[in-house]
């Protein structure tokens, strides 16, 4: 801003020499610049010059202040996206301010010369192209909200508190370079509106503790959804069919398959399921939904929209403990006397002894989980309580839990002592 003043004097001289018509504007602009302490006059000057000079870049170059920063943004596309975003925002903001002032000023002050009529559009173009170029560089593109990305987003939001979550802080917590504040902000907006919608549904019947599950279910449902899911239907909840679909708005069908396989590994892959592992018709509960609709709606058909995570009963009755490695479960020490570890890899290729192949894995996941792994797992929960629940069991109503605790003599939760 300060640098504007000397420029003004130089351009004044130029203008006086070159643009006769524009000189009429000078006194007015000077007055205004004095009054507002603004580089307004520079912009006018710049516009006048821009009239003479072809090309959008020159607009930007000639114009000081915000335009300069826009040029910088444009020039250094490789810069940190956040910084770029801020500068761009600042540039845009200033541009807008300038434009609005300038347009008024143009119409009121000059209005006679063509230059004034033309420069706003040119300026617009300049701004847009600059902004467009700035947007084109890393970070400001459309963000692909993958499941992992969204999970971290939800973590950050839950940590901050949904209402209080600010995009900049969310971004910090997520710590992902490719995201801009703008991306996060728009995602947050959508997320909040989704939550509101879910809460409105939940408020009809369920308790507040279940609502907490709602945003925990945002991510997992996307993992469980068949890849041939219909295009996202925005938050339409049809009572019988569509419970799951709205949650899938946030899903990425292409990601589902890869992510879905993550979940069953935590528990047990479904051995005999004829369909892909995550499509297991729910044997226990006659569902309101056609079996082909989705693996998870049978669960939702129970009337709770809280469970997006793979519903255990679907897999348990058919569990066969196939001999697959289970990355989700920390490898537990085994107690085989001969000291070998019955992993699949440790087995000799030709027929591995049955106990090792089939139940060796079982042994690892046996009734004697090691203390260290338990401690680690529980510690994770304690450290990061906002993580989505691994099984996503239907939570009990808060009232009933508290009532039960009161019966047992516990008044305060968490207990004070």
């Amino acid at each position, binding site marked *: 801003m300060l640098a504007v003043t000397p420029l003004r004097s130089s351009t004044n001289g130029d203008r006086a020499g070159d643009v006769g018509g524009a000189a009429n504007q000078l006194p007015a602009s000077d007055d205004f610049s004095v009054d507002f302490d603004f580089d307004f006059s520079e912009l006018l000057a710049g516009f006048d010059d821009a009239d003479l000079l072809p090309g959008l870049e020159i607009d930007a170059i000639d114009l000081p202040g915000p335009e300069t920063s826009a040029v910088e943004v444009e020039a250094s596309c490789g810069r940190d996206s956040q910084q770029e975003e801020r500068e761009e925002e600042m540039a845009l903001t200033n541009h807008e301010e300038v434009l609005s002032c300038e347009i008024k000023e143009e119409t009121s002050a000059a209005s006679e010369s063509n230059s004034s009529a033309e420069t706003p559009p040119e300026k617009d173009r300049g701004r847009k192209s600059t902004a467009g170029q700035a947007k084109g560089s890393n970070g400001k593109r459309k963000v692909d909200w993958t499941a992992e990305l969204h999970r971290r987003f939800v973590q950050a939001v839950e940590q901050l508190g949904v209402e209080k979550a600010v995009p900049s802080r969310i971004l910090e917590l997520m710590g992902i370079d490719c995201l801009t504040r703008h991306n996060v902000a728009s995602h947050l907006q959508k997320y909040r509106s989704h939550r509101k919608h879910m809460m409105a549904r939940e408020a009809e019947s369920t308790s507040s503790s279940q609502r907490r599950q709602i945003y925990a279910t945002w991510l997992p449902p996307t993992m469980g959804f068949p890849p041939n899911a219909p295009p996202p239907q925005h938050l339409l909840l049809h009572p019988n069919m569509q419970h799951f679909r709205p949650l899938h708005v946030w899903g990425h069908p292409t990601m589902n398959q890869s992510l879905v396989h993550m979940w069953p590994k935590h528990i047990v892959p479904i051995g005999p399921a004829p369909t892909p592992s995550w499509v297991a018709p729910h044997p226990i509960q006659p569902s309101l939904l056609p079996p082909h609709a989705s693996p998870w709606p049978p669960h939702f058909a129970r009337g709770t929209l809280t469970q997006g995570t793979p519903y255990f009963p679907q897999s*348990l009755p058919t569990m066969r403990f196939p001999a697959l490695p289970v990355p989700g479960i920390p490898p537990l020490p085994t107690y085989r006397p001969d000291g070998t570890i019955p992993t699949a890899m440790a087995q000799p290729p030709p027929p591995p002894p049955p106990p090792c192949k089939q139940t060796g894995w079982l042994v690892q996941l046996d009734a004697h989980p090691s203390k260290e792994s338990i401690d680690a797992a529980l510690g994770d929960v304690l450290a990061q309580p906002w993580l989505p629940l691994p099984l996503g069991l239907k939570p009990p109503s808060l009232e009933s839990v508290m009532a039960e605790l009161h019966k047992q003599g516990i008044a305060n939760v968490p*207990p004070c002592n």
Partner: protein
Amino acid sequence: MSESPASYIRMVQHLIEKCLLHRMNKEECIDALNKHANIKPVITSTVWGELEKENSEFFAAYERERQNQTTETKTTEEVIEESADDED
């Protein structure tokens, strides 16, 4: 730490689910939460019970599988011991 009862209960549920991933039964879970997370046994027990009420099919199936697993594990142990004995 100051938590609301709801978030505390949720945390306990989360811990219980972790134990379920390790195929623990109720007693083991209570014990683990007590030892590692300082959750009072009565609280764990209560939350477990409530979870069981809300997810009765799950817990029934879970228990069935645990029984099967225990049986298989016992068989495995026996086989291992036998083979170890044989090797000796």
